[in-house]
């Protein structure tokens, strides 16, 4: 019966009603399921998000840039005969050449090598800040949003106060006291940095908490921590990922900013911020490469993270799903 139908379908469609063969007017035997079939292929949330992200050229460009940058930060220095801290004084302030691709600085250190070491530090600071923000923010925001009521009220008051504190001023103050180092910079950046994440998570959790599937697991007596892990987190992942993508450039920028105040990573180690700051004084004398490379990589990295964050925001927004 079914195959017959297929065949007649492929036949020439009559253009006027008189051409239609009589037997087409026989009532059809119906199988109940055919009405329920959905025509469009269904994609999972992540598949759909990935498909949309892939279509976003700018975001994909950002992602590829960041992957290459990450690889260069790890392996780049290996290909270089120079080290990050050993200068060669006769070779100071050389412009880019075959020996020194990015030139040398005022102590004769190779800028190419230092740039990739700088990438390590800058990316490390950025990623650590994002990861720590993630853990504190998700825990705090998750609990506040999930428990609700009085707990939420108290926790939100605390957040409100922390949010009112000027972020960079607190960071500066802490670093003045703690003394600048890689560790203290990350600590200072995350002391109040997680507040934004906590607010986002709480808002998401509050919204999703009302959903039936959460009520259902609650009624089965599932433990709170399990509900947060299994039900709430997967559904709040979108905004969290976006927030993390945007935390990284903020932290990288903050580290560069701190270098300007003399509170960044200390010499001879390099971060992009330190390198740019060292080069500021000499930019007018024409040694452009010393500022150009760190400045370019800070800007390009921030640009890449920003466009990737935007792309993820669009790709992960359930409202935009079609």
């Amino acid at each position: 019966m079914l195959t017959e139908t297929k065949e007649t379908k492929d036949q020439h469609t009559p253009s006027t009603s008189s051409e239609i063969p009589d037997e087409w007017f026989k009532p059809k035997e119906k199988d109940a399921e055919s009405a329920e079939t959905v025509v469009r292929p269904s994609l999972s949330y992540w598949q759909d998000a990935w498909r949309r992200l892939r279509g976003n050229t700018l975001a994909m460009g950002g992602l590829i840039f960041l992957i290459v940058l990450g690889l260069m930060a790890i392996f780049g220095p290996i290909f270089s005969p120079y080290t990050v801290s050993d200068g060669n004084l006769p070779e100071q302030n050389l412009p880019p050449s075959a020996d020194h691709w990015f030139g040398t600085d005022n102590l004769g250190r190779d800028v190419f090598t230092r740039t990739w070491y700088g990438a390590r530090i800058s990316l490390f600071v950025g990623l650590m800040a994002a990861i720590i923000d993630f853990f504190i923010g998700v825990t705090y925001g998750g609990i506040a949003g999930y428990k609700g009521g009085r707990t939420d009220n108290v926790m939100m008051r605390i957040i409100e106060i922390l949010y009112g504190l000027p972020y960079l001023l607190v960071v500066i103050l802490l670093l003045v006291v703690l003394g600048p180092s890689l560790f203290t910079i990350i600590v200072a950046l995350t002391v109040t940095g997680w507040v934004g994440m906590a607010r986002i998570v709480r808002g998401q959790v509050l919204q999703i908490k009302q959903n039936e599937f959460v009520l259902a697991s609650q009624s089965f007596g599932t433990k709170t921590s399990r509900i947060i892990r299994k039900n709430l987190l997967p559904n709040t992942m979108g905004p969290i990922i976006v927030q993390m993508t945007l935390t990284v450039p903020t932290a990288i920028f903050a580290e560069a900013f701190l270098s300007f105040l003399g509170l960044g990573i200390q010499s001879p180690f390099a971060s992009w911020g330190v390198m740019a700051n060292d080069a500021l004084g000499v930019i007018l004398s024409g040694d452009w490469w010393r500022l150009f490379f760190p400045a370019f990589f800070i800007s390009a990295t921030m640009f890449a993270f920003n466009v990737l964050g935007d792309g993820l925001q669009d790709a992960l927004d359930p409202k935009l799903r079609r």
Partner: protein
Amino acid sequence: MLKYIVKRFFLMILTIFIIATLTFFLMNAIPGSPFNEEKTSNAVVQQNLEKHFNLDKPLPVQYVLYLKSIITFDFGPSIKQPTETVNSLLGRGFPISAELGIWTILVALISGITLGVVAALRHNKLIDYTAMTIAVLGISIPNFVLATLVIQVIAVDLKLLPAATWNSPQHMILPIIALATGPMAIIARLTRSSMLETLTQDYIKTARAKGLSPFKIVVKHALRNALMPVVTILGTLLAGVLTGTFVIEKIFAIPGMGKYFVQGINQRDYPVIMGTTVFYSTFLVMMLFLVDIMYGVLDPRIKLHKKGGE
């Protein structure tokens, strides 16, 4: 509304108090007290310090007296410059920084909102893409990079404008550009997305169904609602501009408050760091308070919401 203001006001006082306390105890936590003689090495300075911070008294008394001095807006002496006090530095530097800050905010707001609205109205057209690419670039390029770039290109190569100091309106243009671009980009992006959302609202459809002109719909119905989110981030933006002045004033050699602050940090001039931090924080928290109130005035729903809560 009154209850809302009062609540916000107490939150503001509490925040200032926390910052002052934090500053005090953090400074005291620095190993080998920042205020002892080896670090100051100047009798006059040491005298000033002991007098202001009551170093002969026990810590709790010091703390209380310190809070008192803050209430009276007396931030104490400078260690490195015996003839200066934090107040005298503030008096000289703050007006200049404020001038830079106010212009920056104004430029950022006007250009950011314009860019955002135009991009939203030409959604997915070339002008939208252009504006948003400019905006992402503006967010991505740190202000110190932009500052050196404009100095190099506009001041040194083209010789169009002076590169440094703060003597005439021409001197102000480059620092303002360098400082305003970031906030402008943030405002433009926010305005665009919130404008796009507002334009899909039913009341915009209603306004169109009434036969209003597109200009009237945008200005009267969409803009005010679309700008609400911009108002909420004004406080954060202000904080960004303020910390931005540290860098910009250093690069452009502008004798503002930021320059003294950075100098204080570099020389570990602790009373200056403490004083300016508290001053800056108080200023910012007060601005946040004003922004909150402004939001309440702009959005009629907030009044009822608060009344309903009583």
